[in-house]
């Protein structure tokens, strides 16, 4: 088998932002906060590192300041390396073609980086899937099948509303992909693609060159769908926990999933940890009237009120008599005395002022935007 040190990782930081407009207004999909102390990019990035990969490029398109701040030199992921390591690849990196329209154009912008890596394989991933994935068996699968492209998929029951945002794979008994449905109007049990693709580097470079000549830009439509029968495309079924973040509702649900102990221990496994930026804040502080049940709490929180079934990011303050229930509250947000926040998502550095009550529903959580004072 190929050494995992010889596999290049490429993470697309800005794909699928249209599904989460509230949270991606001022940040890339990759830097959407998740699970009390993480950003979505931490999941594919840590998965790559824990799989033994040492070269990762993050392909960005726009709004990448917060992402760059988060990633720094990559030292938290042990990717501050003399050779290889972490590279952030902003647009206009190679030519003045401008901002890419799709995955193929994004890859064209990173063509030189891909070539120079000298890697044997490339694993591409987006930032919209929460999972702690081992890529070693996927490379093994790719080699065993003699595949040109391996697509990783999950299996689950989905509504047509959700399926209309997915790429769905039809896979035969030999794991060959025989049909690729883009944003289908179907519901029920299906195989959504997790937007993780494996190819040989040289194969990918050929695709990039050819697509550039023909002005093709969508990997899913122009390659997977239109060239499905020209290439050997296989599907690798991922059996671990995953959630595709395709709406505020699924974002909310995936955060709530982390309160499930089994899911939490699988995703945040101690021997394959999810790494993230260190903020050097003191541990959480519980006051005399604190009453916290079934919640995930990050460092730096100060809790004097009631918190139930909620996720509190770093430095959240819950005042005396305040109630936070079934909610996600991001870094630095303050729920003041006697205020109540029920079934909601509050972005960073917001404030819910004294005595105010805001209630959403678990299907449609109410949203407080970044820095808002409600």
């Amino acid at each position, binding site marked *: 088998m190929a050494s995992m040190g010889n596999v290049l990782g490429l993470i697309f930081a800005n794909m699928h932002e249209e599904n989460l407009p509230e949270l991606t207004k001022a940040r890339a999909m990759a830097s959407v906060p998740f*699970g009390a*102390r993480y950003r979505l990019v931490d999941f594919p990035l840590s998965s790559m590192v824990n799989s033994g990969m040492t070269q990762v490029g993050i392909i960005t398109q726009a709004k990448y300041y917060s992402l760059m701040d988060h990633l720094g030199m990559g030292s938290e992921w042990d990717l501050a390396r003399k050779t290889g390591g972490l590279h952030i690849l902003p647009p206009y990196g190679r030519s003045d073609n401008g901002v890419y329209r799709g995955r193929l154009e994004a890859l064209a912008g990173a063509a030189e980086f891909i070539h120079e890596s000298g890697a044997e394989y490339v694993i591409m991933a987006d930032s919209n899937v929460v999972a702690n994935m081992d890529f070693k068996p996927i490379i093994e699968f790719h080699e065993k099948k003699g595949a040109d492209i391996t697509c990783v998929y999950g299996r689950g029951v989905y509504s047509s509303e959700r399926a209309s945002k997915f790429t769905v794979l039809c896979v035969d008994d030999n794991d060959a992909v025989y049909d690729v449905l883009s944003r289908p109007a179907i519901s029920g049990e299906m195989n959504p693609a997790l937007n993780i693709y494996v190819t040989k580097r040289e194969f990918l470079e050929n695709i990039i060159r050819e697509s550039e000549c023909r002005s093709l830009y969508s990997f899913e439509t122009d390659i997977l769908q239109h060239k499905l029968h020209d290439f050997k495309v296989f599907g690798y079924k991922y059996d671990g926990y995953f959630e595709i973040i395709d709406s505020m509702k699924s974002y909310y649900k995936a955060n709530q999933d*982390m309160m499930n102990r089994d899911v939490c221990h699988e995703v945040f496994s101690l021997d394959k940890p999810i790494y993230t930026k260190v903020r*050097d804040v003191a*541990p959480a502080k519980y006051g005399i009237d604190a009453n*916290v049940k079934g919640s*995930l709490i990050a*460092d730096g929180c*100060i809790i004097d009120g009631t*918190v139930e079934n909620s996720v509190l990011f770093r430095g959240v303050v819950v005042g005396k008599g305040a109630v936070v229930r079934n909610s996600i509250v991001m870094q630095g947000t303050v729920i003041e005395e006697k205020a109540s926040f029920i079934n909601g998502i509050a972005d960073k550095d917001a404030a819910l002022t004294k005595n105010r009550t805001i209630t959403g529903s678990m299907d449609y959580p109410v949203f407080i935007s970044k820095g808002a004072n409600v």
Partner: protein
Amino acid sequence: MNHIKKECVAMLLAGGQGSRLYALTQDMAKPAVPYGGKYRIIDFPLSNCVNSGIDTVGVLTQYQPLVLNEYIGNGQPWGLDRAHGGVHVLPPYETAAGKAWYSGTANAIYQNIGFIDRYSPEYVVILSGDHIYKMDYSKMVDFHKEHEADATIAVLEVPWEEAPRFGIMSANPDGTIYEFAEKPKEPKSNLASMGIYVFTWSKLRKYLIDNENDEGATKDFGKNIIPAMLDNKEKMVAYHFDGYWKDVGTIDSLWEANMDVLDPKVPLDLLDDSWKIYSRNPVMPPHYAGPNSQIQNSMVAEGCEINGMVDFAVLFAGVVIEEGAIVRDSIIMPNTVIKKGAVIEYSIVGENCVIGEGAHIGERPELIEDKSSWGVAVIGHNVNVSDKAVAPPKAMISKDI
């Protein structure tokens, strides 16, 4: 290698055994002892250095250095992984003249004159890894310069009745020190030395060499260097500090200093962004307060899972409190598991311990008639306490029970 001159180099004395912490320092040096939910004691002087603009720090280790060496690593958590300077761990070493352990605080610095000389500093700051405090050393260095001093000693006003426990300075109103007494029975002043010194390097260098050549000397700052400089009428000044400062050299003071982080009246703000205390962070998920948890008046670090009752406690990273367990007025160090129904009161439990179901560690003072038999109970690191075992107050457990 070409060394860039540094105005100021800090030397941190971290080799002490901390024997009064007994079981807690059996396999780690005192500066490596966990404190405040996520820190180790050494994070305070190291962070103070970085926040004060001192980027070259020598850490002198000797006793049980493994935990400390691993913890400091390349200094990255404190921003001390520098191209010029940075943090250097300095253990004793062998020379052509023979091998020698560090035989005293002054001898430890003497043996590293070569390290300090590489940076040709004007000033050397001498620190210890025994105290919890936030202090801007750059202000103290400025004070040293303004007074054209040869040595500046940080002092704290202590209650008169406690003065006999400290090294006591007598100073004129202008700050000039005229007398020094180590743990005097009848103190003439209540200005206690905090063990923080700024020296003009050329001066200190000379006194270190003289002290080393004096065969009868004990090679100690308090006993030799400071008195010798005073005798020779070198200019020595007292620098007053009035913030929070706590010695954590005993079980009781370590317990108290941890409880201080829970007391809003204590002026030690660990959440202050302008003077962060950095530490090597464990990679763990946020802590989880379970459906049956009851947590009040406590500090809880990442990676904890709590299903029992926690009141006035400091829980370090990765601590598990199972259902029905009660932890009160106690400190639980990293990755320790408190099994179902166990009760921990007025105790310090070390790292990686397992406290069995229904075990009872420590006791509340109000339930003890003979107050002299009461004290904080201590379970050392890596100890397993079997189900229903009892460790009375003042117990010092370093082996499985």
